[in-house]
């Protein structure tokens, strides 16, 4: 400490600094926003993005993969690395000079896969770090909570992995955008393939995780399979904290069902599927047919946890790293991303990583086309935006609900996987027309985008 600084002086300085720090930054932020017209307008030669992913808790591995993708996207936007999908993206606005000439920097937060923790970390990134956009996440509860916060605060939210209908349904917000597919699309993509493989005279038993995503997925799968002639024998809710599902699997045996649908994700999915296979469901016949298990939402990371139990089980995905190799140019961008991710990290990216990478590029491109970081300008640039070359084929960001519409990948667990990254095989890709629905579809009813918020 300087010898000129007296104890009294130090106390005064400390008190002053303390008072300044204690002032809620939302006030200073609002004042700043008024000057520039929107929250966290970048003033220097950098722009800060906030990546809010689960870094602890049960989805930490998925969060880590999202973070890898974000780092890669930032590298590519700043002109480092091999550029990844910048060269395949149908819009050639991004040239590796950052966004609007500003170098991209980022801060990260830990959602812990808890809505309140996710909101707190997003709020910190907006108020403390000056993030102008928030992205990431691995749960619909978190996505809905952070999206609402972004709307209030006047920043853009580019959702990560969130599959519940509600994110772009009843909880949709003008400042929020989802690239990932949803429960309805899983149902619409899976149902025809289920009917084709397993027939139209089937009786399904649903085990559903007792929370929002579980409900919307159950509703989506039951309505699409019933439309094709299937019966729903029972829908049973299972607690989110359940680890041993045996007592829920056992009643399936005597229920007259011949298909078990597991509306579970993450650890729930790993455990319920493992238990179902242990009970020999897949070796049995019911109603004169082979018993089948369906997992509507697949995740490569979860498939790894379930090991050999996923063999032969059908499900749906937003994207798969083998798409371009197996189905050709329509899915261009896939290989570019896989190559640059694989070279940097040594293994192929997950669909969570893909959606986060793409969302970052889409945001950067929208800002570039709008010529401004102002949220309402970005919203306008993204609404109704049609693009290609980001791995999913031609895609539309629909203006009415901020949901991306693109093909859906139907996959099946491999019988003999060669390694831990090659666990699923692509069965078919359901074209976008078959998974498109009107914005006021009953499964998405009750939502209102409202108007975009610049935060000023």
């Amino acid at each position, binding site marked *: 400490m300087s010898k000129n600084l007296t104890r009294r002086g130090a106390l005064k300085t400390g008190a002053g600094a303390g008072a300044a720090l204690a002032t809620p930054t939302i006030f200073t932020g609002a004042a700043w926003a008024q000057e520039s017209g929107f929250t966290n307008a970048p003033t220097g030669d950098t722009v800060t993005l906030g990546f809010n992913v689960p870094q602890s808790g049960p*989805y930490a591995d998925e969060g880590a993969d999202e973070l890898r993708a974000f780092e890669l996207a930032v590298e590519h936007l700043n002109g480092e690395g091999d550029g990844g999908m910048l060269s395949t993206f149908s819009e050639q606005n991004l040239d590796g000079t950052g966004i609007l000439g500003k170098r991209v920097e980022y801060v990260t937060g830990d959602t812990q896969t808890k809505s309140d923790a996710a909101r707190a970390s997003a709020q910190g990134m907006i108020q403390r770090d000056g993030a102008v956009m928030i992205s990431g996440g691995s749960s619909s509860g978190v996505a809905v909570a952070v999206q609402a916060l972004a709307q209030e605060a006047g920043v853009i939210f580019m959702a990560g992995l969130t599959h519940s209908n509600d994110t772009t349904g009843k909880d949709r917000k003008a400042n929020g955008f989802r690239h990932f597919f949803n429960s309805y699309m899983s149902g619409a993509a899976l149902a025809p393939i289920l009917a084709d493989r397993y027939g139209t005279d089937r009786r399904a038993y649903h085990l559903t995780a007792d929370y929002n995503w579980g409900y919307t997925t159950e509703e989506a799968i039951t309505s699409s399979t019933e439309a094709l002639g299937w019966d729903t024998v029972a829908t049973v809710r299972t607690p989110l904290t359940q680890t041993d599902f045996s007592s829920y699997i056992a009643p399936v045996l005597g229920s007259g069902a011949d298909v078990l649908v597991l509306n579970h994700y993450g650890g729930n999915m790993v455990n319920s599927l493992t238990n179902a296979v242990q*009970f020999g469901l897949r070796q049995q016949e019911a109603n004169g047919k082979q018993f089948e298990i369906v997992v509507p939402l697949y995740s490569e990371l979860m498939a790894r946890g379930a090991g050999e139990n996923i063999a032969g089980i059908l499900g749906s995905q937003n994207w798969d790293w083998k798409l371009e190799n197996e189905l050709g140019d329509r899915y261009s961008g896939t290989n570019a991303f896989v190559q640059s991710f694989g070279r940097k990290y040594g293994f192929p990216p997950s669909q969570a990583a893909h959606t986060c990478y793409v969302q970052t590029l889409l945001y950067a491109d929208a800002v570039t086309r709008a010529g401004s970081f102002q949220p309402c300008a970005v919203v306008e640039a993204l609404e109704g935006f049609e693009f290609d070359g980001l791995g999913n084929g031609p895609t539309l960001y629909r203006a009415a609900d901020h949901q991306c519409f693109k093909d859906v990948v139907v996959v099946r667990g491999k019988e003999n996987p060669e390694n831990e990254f090659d666990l699923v095989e692509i069965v078919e890709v359901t074209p976008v027309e078959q998974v498109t629905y009107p914005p006021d579809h009953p499964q998405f009813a009750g939502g209102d985008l409202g108007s975009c918020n610049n935060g000023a």
Partner: protein
Amino acid sequence: MDGIILQLFDGLSKGSAYALIALGLTLIFGTLGVVNFAHGALFMLGAFCAVLLSQLLTISHTVVDESRTDFLGNPMQVDIPYVVEWFGEAAGNAIIDWSVPLAILFAIPVMLLIGFAMERGLIRHFYKRPHADQILVTFGLAIVLQEIIKYFYGANPIPTPAPDAFSGSFDLGAVLGFDPFTIIYPYWRLIYFVFALIIIAGVFAFLQFTTFGMVVRAGMADRETVGILGIDIDKRFTVMFGIAAAVAGLAGVMYTPINSPNYHMGMDFLVISFVVVVVGGMGSLGGAVLAGFVLGVLESLASLNAVIELIPGINQVVIYLAAVLILLTRPRGLMGRKGVMED
């Protein structure tokens, strides 16, 4: 009827895990008077002994296979486990396949050592402290242990399957005279139940029929008098802590084929194990075992669809409801005795 029988069996296998964990908890509580919130973490560490052994057995060297390519288009690198190279294809793969049963042998010394280290290094400094301090320190320890495991193994579950010979299920209904395919039960869960019975019997026999056990029981009943007789009861209690850790660890090892282990699995069992201990009667080993099986069976029966239709949501609360009812009618639990742990 077949559904009820199936749930009874399922409840017994569930109860096996509860009983084993609660048995260890009670051993520690009964001997040392410590409320060990790190006991779930010991269960988890046991499971990760199985994961570690399976990794050790599959330590490999890589060979480049020019005929195949990896996802980046480079020549495929194939891992060949040393065990397979040393013992030949059939024997090597059989050793890897049997890694979970082999892990029992591996886990016993490891868990005993962990138990001794925990007791000597940390817990013994808290014997004379209030229960609240013990709870805080052991709960903190549990979090540290699970974060260490997460650091090395990640947050995702790690598949650790049973040997192929036991990985399927069998038609119990056909054996009992029911229609085929009505009561199917996985082999491994039955093995888990039998294993639990053997361990429980072993612990009881050890306490009942050995001099060491007799001294420990005497110490549990009246620690001071045993001390006055010139017996170093502390040393014996340290051994009991090690044994309790080993019991929890073995329960964890054998549990890995039922649900793929992850860093959080101990916490999932912790609360329920305490309920089991309290319902059984604090400090009562027999009570812990009985309550473990009773609550396991109740949990399974409450998941019958007919029961859920009758009382929606009962499956999620049945254990706690039963605990409330039992404690209201028998405040000391099923087998708790007056004067034990009531100072």
